[in-house]
Structure formats: C-alpha cells, structure tokens
C-alpha cells in the first residue's frame, strides 16, 4: 500500500518535473530514467538472484550503439524499432555470455562479466569503421510513434516528447519487472540467491534460472542504453568502459538492492549528487568513494533500507 502511494507520487513528480523544474534539472531526468531501466534489470540479477555483474556496461553500450548505428548508418529513426532492436541485440549477445558466466558465482562470476565487458570495450574502440572508435557514433534524433520531430528545437524535443516517451518506457519496464519478481520465476530466483543447493533439491534448475535472469537484465540494460543516446546525440566507448559497470553497481548499492525501487532511487540520487558535487569540487570521485564506504558500512540496505528499516515485520524483500 505504502509502496503504491510512493510510486504514484514518484511518477507524478517525474511527470511534473518539466513543468515545474528548470530545463537543466529536467534534462538530468533523462539519464536518470534511462539508468532506472538499466538498474531494474541489473537488480534482477543482483538483488534477486545474488549475482553481481561488473560487466553490464557491455549491454548499455550495445543498446546505445545499436541505436546510433540504426539512425546513422541504416536510416532507421523510429525509436520503437530502435528499442526493440536494442533489446533483441542485447538478448542475442547476452545468451552466449550468460551461458558461460552463470556457471560461476561470486567473484568468479563478477570477474568473468568484467572480462566480457573489456572485450566489448576494446571492440568498440578498435573497430573504427563500424563504431567511430574513441570519437563514437552520432545518435540522430529518433522519431517517436512514427512522427518525425526534427523541426523541433532540441531542448523542446528532449524535455517534451522525448521526456514523456522515456517515462512511459520506464513505467512499462517497471511494470514488467514487478510482474517478473512477483511471479513463480521470481520466487525461484530468490531461492537460488539464498541457497542454490537447496533450490536444486527442490527441482529448480539453478543454472537455467540464472541464465534467464542474466538475459532479462541484459535486455533491460540495452533498452536503457539506447535511451541514453538521444540526449547527448552521440555514443562513445566510455559507455562500455568497466568504470561505467562499476557506477551502476554503485547506484544499486546506494539506493539499496534489497528493495524493488531501491536501485531507481539510487540512480536518481547518484545523478543529481554527481552533478552537484562536480559543480563544487573537481574531485567528485573522492567524495563518491567515501560515500560508498559509508553506505556499505552504515547502511548496507541503502537509502531505501534506511527509510524502511523501522517498519515492523518487513514482509521480506519486496
């Protein structure tokens, strides 16, 4: 009930932001919404399955480059087609990667995902003709629902139609993930996170479930990645760099991986805090590093955990 109210208020606040907040702040909401989608997927793997990936920037990059390639080289500008293609490419690449990675757990899983991420990073950096190397590839302005909006000033496009389009995609992504974590499949993932040996003896296919969770999380990361492109208009290899994978793990920890919306809150706080700290001191990584240490030590359940901790008999991990 409380969650429902908080979500409704949150959605309302996001919807109202372009009307009440400054353009600068409204623009910051765009990467927030894109990252929120990425993190909903990442947390299926992290919070619900117990696997920490340090290579999900691979899929963010894949989604973003798919969009850039389609708009620049293939003449496809429809955002619907771009998002579906990003999801499909994300799933296709995730399948062999997942098949190899999910046989391992803990640090071995993390290192393997990191390795695949680095391979992809090198690929986008070196295959200049296809990816534009370190300069990247332009992500031309996509059309929304079949309507080309090229004539509109860029800012109006971004804080107008593109903003609400992103919000709807985020809403659908959250709804889909909510269904997944509250499905029989979602319950089985939690059993695997808690005790894979026991899960196996109940007849739950541990490797198969981890594989599905990985692929779903990659699809979410690719869709979120594709949405990161239009605001900057360019996609470059830093999106696929391993520190980017670290950032999204940080966002998840910041908000709290034990709750459904924790990572979404984490993305929001991370983006606004990063902008604020960067505007004050150049050493924002120093501040963020210290913050991460404090969170891990003092609030292992993240910011959402701090708020919900006092609630009696918390009904498990939502």
């Amino acid at each position: 009930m409380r969650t429902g109210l908080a979500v409704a208020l949150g959605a309302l606040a996001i919807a109202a932001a372009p009307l009440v907040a400054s353009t600068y702040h409204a623009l910051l909401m765009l990467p927030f919404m894109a990252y929120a989608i990425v993190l909903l997927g990442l947390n299926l793997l992290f919070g619900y399955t117990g696997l920490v990936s340090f290579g999900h920037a691979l899929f963010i990059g894949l989604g973003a480059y798919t969009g850039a390639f389609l708009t620049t080289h293939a003449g496809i500008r429809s955002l619907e087609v771009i998002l579906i293609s990003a999801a499909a490419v994300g799933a296709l690449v995730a399948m062999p990667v997942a098949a190899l990675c999910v046989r391992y757990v803990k640090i071995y899983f993390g290192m393997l995902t990191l390795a695949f991420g680095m391979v992809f990073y090198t690929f986008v950096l070196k295959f200049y003709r296809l990816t534009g190397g370190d300069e990247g590839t332009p992500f031309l302005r996509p059309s929304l629902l079949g309507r080309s909006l090229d004539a509109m000033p860029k800012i109006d496009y971004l804080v107008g139609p593109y903003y609400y389009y992103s919000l709807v995609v985020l809403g659908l992504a959250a709804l889909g993930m909510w269904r997944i974590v509250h499905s029989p499949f979602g319950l089985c993932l939690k059993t695997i996170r808690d005790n894979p040996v026991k899960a196996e003896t109940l007849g739950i296919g541990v490797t198969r479930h981890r594989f599905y969770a990985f692929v779903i999380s990659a699809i979410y990361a690719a869709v979120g990645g594709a949405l990161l492109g239009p605001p900057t208009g360019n996609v470059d290899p830093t999106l696929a760099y391993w520190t980017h994978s670290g950032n999204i793990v940080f966002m998840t920890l910041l908000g709290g991986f034990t709750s459904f919306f924790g990572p979404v809150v984490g993305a929001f706080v991370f983006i606004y805090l990063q902008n604020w700290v960067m505007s004050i001191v150049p050493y924002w990584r120093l501040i963020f590093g210290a913050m991460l240490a404090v969170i891990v030590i003092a609030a292992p359940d993240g910011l959402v955990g701090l708020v919900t901790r006092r609630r009696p008999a918390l009904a498990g991990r939502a």
Partner: protein
Amino acid sequence: MILRAEGLRKLYGEFCALDGVTLGVDAGEFVSIVGPNGAGKSTLINILTGVTRPSAGTVLFKGREVSGAGPARLARLGMARSFQLVQVFPDLTVEETLQAAVVARLGRATRLFSSLASDREVRAGALEVAELFGLADKRHVPARQLPQGDKKLLDVASAFALKPEIILLDEPTSGVSTADKTAIMDTLVAASKLIGLRAIVQVEHDMDIVFAYSHRIVALHQGKVLADAPPATILADRRVMDTIIGRDTARPRAPAC
C-alpha cells in the same frame, strides 16, 4: 522396487568410501541406514540422490538408471531429500519456501509473468503442507528467525511439498532436542501417509528413533553393508549392534579397497 543400488563403489583418491554396496527399497518401506561415523552413510545418500556420481555401480529409480543425474532432475522424477545440516532459504518466509517447492512440483518455475499471489493451487498446496507440519501460524516468518527445530521441520516440509514418491532424509532429527525428535518423526510419518509417499529412507544416529520407526535397517561399516534386516533381527545380532552403536573393537578402516 522403487529404488535399487547395485555394486556402488566410491573412491576419493586412495580412500574408499563405499565398497560394493547393494540395497533396494520397496514400496511401503521405511528403511534406515545406520553405521558409525565414516561408514559411508552420507556418501551413499549423496549417490542415491544424484549429488555424487559413483566410481562404479548403478542406481535405478523406478527402473531408470539415474546415477549422477543431479538433484534437480531426481526431484522432478519424484525423489526428494533433506539434509543433515539444515538447509533453508534464510530470507524467505515459511510460506514462500513451501510455495517454491509447490511451484517446482507443478512445473511452473519458469513462469515469468503470471502472478504468484493469485495462483490458488500454489498457495493452497503450500498452506496444506504448512498445516501438516504445524508451521501454518509461522508462515510469514522468515526462515532465519525460526528456532532450530522449526528450521529442521521446514527443511523436511519443503521436501514433502514436492509430493515425492520416495524421500531420503539425512539425519532428520540431528540437532533437535530429544523431546522434539519423536514429535518430528510422528509428524513425518503421518504426513507421508497423507501425501501418498511410497517409501522413506533415512540416515539416523539415534537408535531409539531407528528401531521405533524402521521396517528394515541397513547397517554400513567401512563402506560395506554389514547387515540388511528387520529391526528385530538386527537387535538380536550382537556383532552388528556392537558395530553400529560404536562398541566396535575392530581396528581403524584400511585406506584402500
């Protein structure tokens, strides 16, 4: 015969944990595997449940060769197990734990978008088992908050929720107070009748429990079957009794077969 093991042998390097064990379990039987520490009981149960692959020999479950099949496949075929060291899902409630077992039994573990909350069959199945094991009033408690006896009960209950044909229990009463042991065993036997379980195999150290509930006792010693007989016969055999209750005067086992 539901379960049959023939000529099971298991080597760990030079060490021979099982040396040609043959045993069978018929429908309607409650079989106890006993023996001193290091006799090979855990190795045997791990081979029977598909966790460990034998170095030689076969395991037939319902006439099908299943050695090394893996616990997930065996669970789907109708074999469930519980563990010596209690195995629960710490952050899941009693209800969620039992629901997971029912979901797996009904083959719904990969349903991505259907709502668990509105799946009446799963909810009813989980509640039924919770009531059977006296855990219904604790169904919203996370497993990690349960007392040790209830954790043990939940471990066994989740195996029962699979409605298996045979269940293998690795020391179902270990770590439980003497007073609770009989209660757990009575619950277990009553539940097995209600769910139509065809056979129970247990590894157990407590001889009072073993003699009170078993139809047949298989005594292991140094990786071999020392005796395989009804409780009365075992009781009458001084040599076997001395061995299984640890009054064995034999020298420590030889390292190789």
